[in-house]
């Protein structure tokens, strides 16, 4: 599918339900956009330019996904900055942060500049997350100051945890001095070892090497203690267990500066899905138990979990068409995230529209200390257009992403984004 990026001279979004909890906005009205600015929110009677009929549609602040793997440089056969941005736009995202575990890892200024340059003319803003340590090797800190100047939005050794407590302490102290968070992938490698799925009943049935929930929780606990001690800006990536939610909730209640994310797949699938050895259900952290899922949803609801990010992890067919143990970890998520969350959380009244906007648009920008994105007159037009009623069937052959690896093929979903507007550009998808 060839995505079409239109330049916006002026465009009118007609009869939209415009919702932005940041400015307490929820009304059916028109939005007039000129170039990249919202000129007017209110009835526009006469307008000759391009008009998008938004009757029964919703306009929300452009969504941001703060956990994406773009695979460039190094694995361009899986994804590139451009195909990843296309996929993001097709999934309703106007901004994304990409993880540094490329080949080589993003660990110096020129690497950050390379990513920024690749995405320069795209509608989607790309914010590189840079490595905490050189080569993500867990030894020496990277030149964080230099990379922030070049556009790095945060630091992570994602794919691996920040290896030692001492290193985490120094990284948090240093990054926080510069006003950016450290994002940790919480996994005690000595406990996860060669595990490939959640340790529980299903792993006992399948005889599969497994990853206990404490592998995540021990590093979450470690990081929370260090964040409290250093008053550092800590963000915990892809939280998957009930115990981690409990630890984060407790830390937040004592004022620790921590934020946390989870992913759509943990909210809609459990380790039951691994029965049958479908390698598209293999990711790290693994799909967990039903109770973990329940506690994640509760954590989203009560504010313990701040954001939903996709952990979009493109892999080639051959990386998944193999034995479960050999298969690569991870699934793509940019083009299904909204539909999954809308169908399985919003429609089921587990999450409100306002909460969805906070989790998928407002908070990621706050966590990475990026400029806020509000729907108000005079503000940059950075918007996602939502069709809340459309019924659709997930079909990865129509995806913009170069990779197709995800377990949601043929799922029937309700609700989809149908367009994005940002940086004076518009993409409409049907």
């Amino acid at each position, binding site marked *: 599918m060839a995505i079409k990026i239109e330049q916006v001279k002026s465009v009118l979004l007609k009869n939209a339900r415009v919702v932005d909890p940041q400015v307490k906005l929820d009304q059916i009205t028109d939005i007039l956009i000129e170039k990249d600015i919202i000129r007017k929110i209110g009835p526009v009677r006469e307008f000759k330019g391009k008009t998008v009929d938004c009757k029964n549609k919703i306009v929300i602040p452009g969504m941001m996904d703060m956990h994406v793997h773009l695979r460039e440089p190094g694995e361009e056969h899986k994804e590139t900055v451009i195909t990843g941005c296309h996929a993001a736009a097709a999934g309703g995202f106007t901004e994304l942060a990409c993880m540094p575990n490329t080949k080589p890892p993003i660990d110096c200024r020129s690497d950050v500049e390379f990513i920024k340059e690749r995405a320069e003319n795209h509608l989607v803003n790309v914010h590189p997350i840079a490595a905490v340590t050189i080569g993500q090797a867990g030894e020496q800190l990277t030149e964080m100051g230099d990379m922030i100047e070049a556009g790095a939005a945060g630091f992570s050794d994602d794919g691996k945890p920040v290896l030692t407590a001492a290193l985490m302490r120094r990284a948090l102290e240093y990054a926080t001095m510069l006003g950016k968070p450290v994002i940790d992938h919480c996994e005690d490698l000595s406990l996860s070892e060669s595990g490939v799925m959640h340790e529980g009943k299903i792993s006992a*049935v399948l005889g*599969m090497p497994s990853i206990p929930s404490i592998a995540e929780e021990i590093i979450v606990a470690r990081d929370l203690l260090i964040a409290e001690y250093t008053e550092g800006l800590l963000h915990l990536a892809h939280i998957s267990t009930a115990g981690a939610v409990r630890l984060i909730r407790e830390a937040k209640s004592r004022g620790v500066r921590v934020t946390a994310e989870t992913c759509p797949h943990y909210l809609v699938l459990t380790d039951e899905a691994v029965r049958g050895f479908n390698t598209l259900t293999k990711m790290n952290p693994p799909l967990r138990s039903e109770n973990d899922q329940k506690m994640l949803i509760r954590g989203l609801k009560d504010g313990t979990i701040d954001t939903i990010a996709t952990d979009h992890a493109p892999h080639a067919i051959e990386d998944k068409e193999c034995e479960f*143990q050999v298969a690569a970890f991870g699934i793509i998520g940019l083009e299904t995230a909204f539909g999954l969350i809308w169908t399985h959380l919003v429609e089921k009244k587990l999450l409100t529209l306002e909460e969805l906007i906070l989790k998928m648009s407002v908070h990621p920008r706050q966590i990475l200390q990026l400029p806020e994105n509000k729907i108000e007159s005079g503000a940059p037009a950075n918007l996602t257009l939502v069709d809340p009623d459309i019924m659709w069937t997930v079909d990865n052959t129509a995806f913009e992403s170069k990779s197709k690896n995800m377990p949601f093929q043929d799922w029937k979903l309700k609700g989809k984004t149908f367009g994005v507007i940002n940086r004076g550009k518009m993409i409409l998808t049907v």
Partner: protein
Amino acid sequence: MQLKSRHLLGLEGVCQEDITLILDTAESFKKVLDRPIPKVPTLRGKTVANLFFEPSTRTRFSFELAEKRLSADSVNFSKVGSSVAKGETLKDTARNIEAMKINFVVMRHSAPGAPHFLSQCLDSVVINAGDGAHEHPTQALLDMMTLRNCFQSLKGLKVVIVGDIEHSRVARSNIYGLLTMGANVGVCGPATLIPREIKALGVTVYPGIEEAMKEADVLNVLRIQLERQKEALFPSLREYRNLFGITRERLDRVNRRITIMHPGPINRGVELDSDVADGDYSVILSQVTNGVAVRMAVLYLLDGGRQKLEGDDHGN
């Protein structure tokens, strides 16, 4: 006479009728094996590829013999090495072999689910000869056949599997098969080698070997792998024997017959003492004999079970 599934990937989900059919059929083949010329033309013209990605002596021999006894042609492939090592993918290997026109694939592989994956990429009938710690269905079938010979019925029988349950495909297949057949199954071994949620499978967990032996009719004793010691899963073979070894003294203390099974190869003086392994209560060599008959039955039934079993056409 046909099984409900096209492949034999495991015993989880295989119904009582199918297991009974396999065991009954195996009894008929066992009689064939006792003939002066122990061979039938049942699978003449059929080709079996034995793909062994893990070292195996008895299972590979047993399958090969079963194939030869049924007059099938067989080809063997064994490649031992890390499955993670880059090279030809499993799918490519198997599809290339299938392109040479074969009917059955018998596979041993270190990755759980590898035969399930294969069954999705091939037209051939796939028989699991052991996939990692997941299943080893023909082993459990031959175990059940052996037990039926000793006890008539499996219903209500108390079987305790002793040893490294976590890493054992023999344990899992036995659990699924025996529970389906109405037996009571227990497991016993070091806490570090018992899966955390094993109870959810419907088995009793015995913390000590004495408690287990108090209740068991049968002990199925698993081989303890020395490499688990290096992984800090148990301290030493000596300690293992002290806590879980099946010794004459322990058996004498129970003062009642307990049937002893072992899938082999035995670590004598570790999980099983020689006088127990070779003693009156041991059915270990019957297990091996039954293995060939069970594998013949499985191949025959998965081929469609079309030819008559009894009568002259087996006279060769």
